[in-house]
């Protein structure tokens, strides 16, 4: 072999490439901390990935390049159009789906590695076997759980919690089956059937755990599954003796855990609570109980809204998933521009979990060229709301629900909310009187200072905008 080729295949050279990849990953993540550098950070992380892939392809034992090229080509052919064409509103689903295939890859790799070991003469050593089993369980849970999360957000599967009788018991039993089979293999049983049983039990568990979780908790679930996939990748790295997998997988495991924790904290929910399910089930019951004393709702029309907005001093817009679905962000910005021309100050109140993911609203509003400094986070805007003339709630529901402050029996009691009801006037743009994603009734709609404007958010905002221009 030519000396150059020998140099390229030198394990030390490959390790150096891996180190370059780690530097790219870590710096990339650091750049992702700031809006100005975030895009560069993402590109840097992608460059790191390219280093890692090229380095791995150089490893001497790697072969079957034709099949590898075909696999990468097919994956690219599927991934690129999916990422290119997805609508901004459907981003969370897309992330869930990409996370799912990652988990699926981990499960498949651990299965193949176990098959290879069996073909080579039997169970591998424990220090390889245990990570394989761990990766199989977590990878399979992550794959199926993410697919269910995708289905729920895409509304292929009803977003409401789906409860099955004896759910908790079944889940514990499934986990026991998966772990039991894993222990049996680790104890020395050589059986591919047992390994497949692990994958299947974990698959059903993934389905069962995510199905009963209500839509409001879905961001936390996706983040949790993201962390899980990272951990399973790190575990696969231990099994394969591959440093790149260990480092990158663990970086994701750590970041995903933090993000999950931050989200759960913002909703005043505990992660075990969410995973145990039952949010929506309780919610529907409590909502029904509170129905008795609610008053009539007051509906309004665009002309009226336009007058209130145009003659206000301070307007706060509270956007939610309804704005995302209706693609109303551009029209909302036009309305804000028009109001600002008239001397009205317009800010946006961003609840940390408005929409379907933290930061969802920021992304949409940034798309519509709304400057960052007009986007105010909950803690910053809440003290300003009592001095606000008009709070304009566009397709947000649960994050503005005062029941979280007032009703002790409400399932969302204690969750921090945007105090829009403290504004002098509240105008809620809403498609219908349906409850929000969490399935909880919202007392905000029945308050005296609240008026509802029914209709598609974009159309409603456009009508209001036209009326404001008339004034």
């Amino acid at each position, binding site marked *: 072999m030519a000396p150059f080729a020998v140099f390229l295949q030198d394990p030390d050279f490959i390790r150096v490439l891996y180190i370059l990849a780690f530097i790219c990953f870590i710096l990339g993540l650091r750049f992702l901390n700031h809006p100005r550098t975030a895009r560069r950070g993402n590109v840097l992380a992608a460059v790191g990935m390219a280093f890692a892939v090229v380095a791995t392809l150089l490893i001497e034992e790697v072969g079957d390049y034709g099949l*590898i090229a075909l696999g990468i080509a097919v994956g690219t052919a599927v*991934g690129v159009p999916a990422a290119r064409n997805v609508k*901004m509103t459907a981003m969370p689903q897309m992330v869930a789906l990409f*996370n799912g295939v*990652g988990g699926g890859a981990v499960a498949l*790799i651990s299965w193949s590695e176990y098959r290879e070991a069996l073909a080579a003469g039997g169970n591998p050593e424990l220090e390889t076997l245990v990570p394989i089993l761990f990766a199989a369980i977590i990878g399979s849970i992550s794959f199926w759980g993410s697919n269910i999360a995708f289905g729920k957000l895409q509304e292929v599967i009803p977003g409401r919690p789906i409860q099955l009788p004896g759910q908790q018991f079944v889940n514990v039993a499934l986990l026991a089956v998966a772990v039991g089979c894993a222990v049996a293999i680790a104890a020395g049983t050589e059986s591919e059937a047992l390994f497949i049983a692990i994958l299947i039990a974990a698959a059903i568990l993934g389905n069962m755990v995510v199905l009963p979780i209500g839509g409001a908790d879905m961001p936390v679930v996706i983040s949790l599954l993201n962390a899980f996939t990272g951990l399973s990748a790190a575990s696969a790295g231990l099994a394969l003796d591959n440093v790149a997998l260990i480092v990158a997988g663990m970086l994701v495991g750590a970041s995903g855990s933090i*993000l999950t924790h931050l989200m759960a904290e913002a909703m005043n929910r505990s992660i075990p609570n969410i995973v145990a399910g039952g949010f929506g089930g309780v919610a529907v019951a409590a909502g029904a109980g509170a129905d008795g004393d609610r008053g009539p709702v007051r509906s309004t029309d665009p002309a009226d809204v336009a007058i209130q907005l145009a003659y206000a001093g301070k307007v706060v817009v509270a956007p939610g998933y309804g704005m995302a679905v209706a693609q109303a962000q551009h029209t909302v910005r036009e309305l804000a521009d028009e109001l600002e021309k008239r001397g009205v100050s317009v800010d946006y109140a961003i609840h940390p979990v408005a929409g379907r993911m933290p930061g*969802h609203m920021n992304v949409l509003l940034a798309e519509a060229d709304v400057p960052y*400094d007009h*986007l105010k986070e909950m803690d910053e805007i809440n003290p300003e709301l009592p001095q606000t003339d008009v709070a304009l709630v566009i397709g947000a529901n649960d994050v503005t629900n005062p029941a979280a402050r007032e009703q002790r029996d409400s399932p969302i009691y204690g969750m921090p909310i945007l105090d829009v009801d403290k504004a002098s006037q509240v105008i809620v743009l809403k498609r219908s009187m349906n409850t929000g994603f969490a399935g909880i009734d919202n007392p905000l709609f029945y308050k005296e200072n609240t008026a509802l404007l029914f209709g598609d958010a974009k159309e409603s905002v456009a009508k209001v905008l036209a009326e404001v221009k008339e004034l």
Partner: protein
Amino acid sequence: MDLLTELTILVLAAFVGFEVISKVPNTLHTPLMSATNAIHGIVLLGGLLLIGPAEGFLTEALLFIAIVFGTINVVGGFLVTDRMLEMFRRRPDPRAATKAELEAGAAAPVEDGAEPAPERRAA
């Protein structure tokens, strides 16, 4: 490499992950989740490592699917993140002029956020 060396690396990587990420503002949570999601697509390497020595149709098929899945995770993940972040790039602020007029007038002062305010003022 022996197990303890690997575990050392694992633990240190976890701490780096915590440190690097705990400072991300809310605004960037979705892109961050998406970018880390793309990074765990590194499992692709597992498929690359195993498919050469693999024997038997089923094993090869499983690894082929794993490579396809891993590639979708990596390529799709980074692209989707880039699309999200594209929206954060600096553009002429259509409201800058209006805002300046407002601040000069009697209207409520508009606070400058901590984010990219300096460049905006320069623009």
